[in-house]
């Protein structure tokens, strides 16, 4: 029955806005409220209807805020009478619904509650939206009187007014809850104070901070309860004198600055319920209403106890740090300050923290005048580059006098353009003194090196010259140059000991030391303008504190003069020897002739004297021969007639020549073995060597022992010739210099045993010049075995050749 279905109430164009307006009142689906029930009672009684409703119409339904004579809380919108009411203006009245085509089929008409009569007035919000209705319903047809209609209208307006009130109340409650929540969630303690200075509320943080509950404080005077009266009085006196008016030592102390429009932030100590004092940072602001009337104050207290603890910790840490910890705020064109300074400020500057709380002037004045400008410059430099700052300067300390300090800090750019530095200033006076002492020492060393008559040159591990003293410059005629070691000999004109052969760079003493060698008395020559300067060089590797080699140093001593004198001495010895030889020749020859008896018999007493003279002239002759030999050998002027020949005949000849002499001391010489080998020697010089070794052996041999002479093949195709005696052996202390000139184990030996002390030195030179080596083995007390080794030339026949 399509036509009988009640018409769907048409959607007004403003319907969405109306729904929004309805929702704004937050009233749908809320509990019953007496105010509204009073209205429905009144309107039902006055209109004499069994049913009265306050109906609110939303998108799909009408919901009853108050209902009288009806069980249902809501009915679908499409069957609601009120929909019609809210779409019109003024009272909508249906005298008999069963007769009204719009409602005749309505289930509310045909069934419960069998509506016949309906009259409703729209509930219009102040902004003109019909939110719902106040309506009366009867189960019989009827009409409202004019008086009843008027009452319905008036009561409808009252319902709307109640809606508004209700909404305002809700808003206030919310606001209050929000306010409390805000207060409670605030990190700092907040106290709300009435204009008269009494506490009206406090938040949870304040309860915790002060140990009171809100109830305990509400209504009490803030100043009297939570402040030390003494502190208030002090502050009151200060403010009074500042402002020139009397300020009471009460709440006024806190609010006075507000009257000047100042927002005050000040440290106070609030009294805790347990009697202790709580350090806080107090901020007070006034609350004014829209009419600029003072409604009270909000006092927020930031707990400084935690911060004080941190401060205390910092102080303790700072006390452990030698020197002064600081935080420095540098503003390019304004007042700079020290937001933090540790106690060390006294030790460094002789100032108290209070003295520099407001100005950095005292610190600046403490800086030694000459250091002030460089100090500022370095601060500016570090502030612009934001690089770590390090500056050493002097401070005029009132107690300690002039001290050296070292400042280190890291600058940090702040958003406001200032630069914040965190750093440390330490007293380095002692270290500085040591440094100065060290500098002095170094300067001394430098002067010493410069004044030294030795040339001193040092280089680092890479071969860069790091020291080149005055003498070095003088000798080389130039200063140190940056050159690789390979170029040193050429650049510095270095030669071998002969004064003209170029020195291979690997043999440069400094290079050898750089390779870890300890060079002792290496003879080289430095040439300058064609003149050679002979030097003895001592060079050593240099090691760093880590034990790693980090360079080398050479000290060169001028031995040119020494060498000249040595040469003169040698020439003198040579000349004298030559000159001695001539008279000695005649003396020796004469004595030989006389003593031989060939000139006729000599009386026995004369014979003895002549024998003594003859023997000693022989010794003198040997000495002179040796001196001349060694001179020739060292000068390289000894002539060698080298010939390849069999070794054995040479040994046999030596045996024959020395047998008689040896016989005077011991049992004689025994040639035990000799391989059939060829050697290349100057026969006469080899005899000289063998005679030396054999006569030495004879001199040190015990009387009933024999001297052994033998030859045997040695390594590398060489032959070793050995002479062994059974004497006392070679003393440990003598071994190192046994082959040196005039070396004798005991200086008294010369007289006891005869000999010149040149024999072994000559033998060594002779053997070496014949490409051989000489040496000895000895165990003290078990005799000595002297040997030499010579290259061999196979077996066969001798060939003659000569060599210069």
């Amino acid at each position, binding site marked *: 029955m399509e036509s009988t279905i009640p018409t769907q109430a048409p959607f007004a164009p403003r319907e969405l806005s109306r729904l929004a307006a309805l929702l704004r009142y937050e009233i749908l689906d809320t509990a019953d409220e007496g105010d509204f029930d009073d209205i429905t009672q009144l309107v039902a009684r006055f209109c004499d209807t069994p049913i009265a409703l306050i109906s609110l119409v939303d998108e799909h339904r009408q919901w009853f805020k108050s209902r009288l004579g009806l069980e249902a809380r809501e009915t679908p919108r499409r069957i609601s009478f009120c929909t019609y009411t809210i779409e019109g203006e003024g009272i909508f009245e249906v005298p008999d619904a069963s007769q009204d085509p719009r409602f005749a089929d309505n289930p509310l008409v045909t069934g419960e509650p069998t509506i016949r009569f309906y009259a409703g007035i729209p509930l219009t919000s102040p902004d003109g939206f019909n939110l719902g209705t106040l309506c009366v319903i009867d189960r019989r047809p009827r009409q409202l009187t004019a008086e009843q209609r008027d009452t319905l209208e008036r009561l409808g307006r009252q319902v709307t007014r109640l809606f508004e009130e209700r909404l305002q109340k809700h808003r206030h409650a919310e606001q209050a809850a929000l306010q409390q929540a805000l207060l409670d969630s605030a990190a700092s303690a907040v106290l709300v104070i009435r204009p008269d200075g009494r506490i009206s509320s406090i938040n949870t943080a304040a309860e915790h901070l002060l140990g009171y509950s809100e109830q305990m404080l509400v209504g009490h005077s803030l100043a009297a309860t939570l402040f030390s009266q003494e502190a208030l009085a002090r502050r009151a006196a200060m403010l009074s004198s500042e402002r020139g008016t009397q300020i009471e030592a009460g709440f006024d102390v806190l609010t006075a600055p507000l009257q000047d429009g100042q927002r005050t932030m000040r440290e106070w100590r609030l009294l805790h319920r347990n009697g202790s004092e709580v350090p806080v940072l107090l901020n007070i602001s006034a609350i004014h209403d829209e009419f600029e009337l003072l409604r009270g104050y909000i006092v927020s207290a930031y707990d400084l106890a935690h911060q004080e603890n941190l401060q205390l910790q910092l102080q303790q840490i700072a006390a452990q740090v030698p020197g002064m910890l600081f935080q420095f705020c540098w503003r390019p064109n304004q007042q700079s300050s020290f937001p933090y300074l540790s106690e060390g400020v006294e030790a460094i500057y002789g100032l108290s923290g209070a003295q520099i709380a407001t100005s950095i002037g005292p610190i600046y004045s403490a800086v030694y005048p000459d250091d002030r400008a460089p100090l500022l410059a370095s601060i500016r430099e570090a502030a612009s580059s934001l690089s770590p700052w390090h500056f050493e300067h002097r401070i005029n300390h009132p107690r300690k006098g002039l001290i050296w300090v070292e400042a280190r800090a890291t600058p940090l750019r702040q958003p406001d353009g200032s630069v914040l530095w965190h750093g440390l200033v330490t007293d380095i006076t002692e270290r500085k003194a040591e440094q100065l002492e060290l500098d002095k020492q170094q300067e001394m060393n430098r002067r010493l090196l410069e004044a030294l008559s030795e040339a001193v040159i040092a280089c680092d591990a890479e071969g860069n010259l790091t020291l080149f003293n005055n003498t070095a410059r003088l000798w080389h005629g130039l200063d140190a140059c940056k050159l690789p070691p390979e170029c040193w000999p050429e650049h510095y004109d270095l030669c071998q000991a002969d004064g003209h052969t170029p020195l291979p760079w690997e043999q440069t003493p400094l290079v050898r030391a750089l390779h870890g060698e300890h060079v002792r008395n290496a003879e080289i020559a430095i040439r300058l303008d064609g003149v050679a300067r002979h030097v003895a060089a001592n060079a050593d590797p240099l090691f760093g504190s880590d034990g790693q080699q980090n360079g080398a140093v050479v000290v060169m001593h001028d031995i040119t003069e020494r060498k000249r004198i040595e040469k003169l001495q040698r020439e003198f010895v040579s000349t004298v020897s*030559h000159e001695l*030889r*001539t008279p000695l020749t005649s003396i*020796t*020859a004469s004595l030989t*002739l006389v003593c031989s008896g060939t000139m006729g018999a000599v009386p026995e007493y004369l014979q003895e004297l002549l024998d003594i003279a003859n023997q000693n002239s022989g010794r003198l002759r040997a000495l002179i021969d040796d001196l001349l030999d060694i001179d020739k050998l060292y000068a390289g002027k000894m002539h060698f007639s080298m010939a390849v020949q069999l070794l054995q005949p040479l040994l046999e000849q030596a045996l024959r020549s020395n047998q008689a002499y040896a016989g005077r001391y011991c049992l004689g010489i025994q040639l035990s073995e000799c391989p059939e080998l060829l050697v290349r020697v100057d026969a006469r010089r080899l005899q000289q060597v063998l005679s030396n070794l054999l006569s030495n052996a004879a001199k040190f041999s015990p009387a009933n022992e024999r001297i052994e002479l033998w030859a045997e093949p040695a390594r590398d195709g060489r032959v070793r010739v050995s002479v062994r005696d059974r004497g006392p052996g070679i003393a440990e202390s003598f071994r190192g210099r046994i082959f040196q000139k005039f070396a004798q184990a005991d200086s008294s030996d010369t007289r006891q045993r005869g000999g010149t002390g040149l024999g072994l030195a000559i033998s060594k030179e002779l053997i070496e010049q014949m490409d051989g080596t000489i040496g000895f083995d000895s165990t003290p007390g078990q005799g000595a075995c002297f040997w030499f080794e010579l290259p061999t030339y196979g077996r066969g026949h001798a060939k003659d050749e000569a060599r*210069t």
Partner: protein
Amino acid sequence: MRALKRILHVEDVPSIRIVTRIALEKLGGFEVLSCASAQAALAEAQAFAPDLILLDVMLPEMDGIELLRQLDKLVDLEQTPVVLLTGHLDQAQSAELGQLGVRDILQKPFDPLQLPTQLRTIWKAEHE
């Protein structure tokens, strides 16, 4: 082979000259002409006609080598064997020595007891 008999001895140092002469005459039984200088030797050598010349190299005014050169030019002396007595010899001169008749060089100081034997040995070698 004729025996070695006449020796011309040149030595500027008197003491050595005397000792040498004694050794040669008394030990060796030679006939000796001792000259104190090169000039004296040059003046008397030809007349003496020595079998062998014993010469000290270091002579004042004219040294032994120069003396040999001069003697070498004299008739009858070209083939005369020469023995040098010296403590020192300049190596540069050694090449020429054989040409000038030098047969041996004896080191100073020499052993006077050995000298006659040494000279006879050289003489013997000269005539083999």
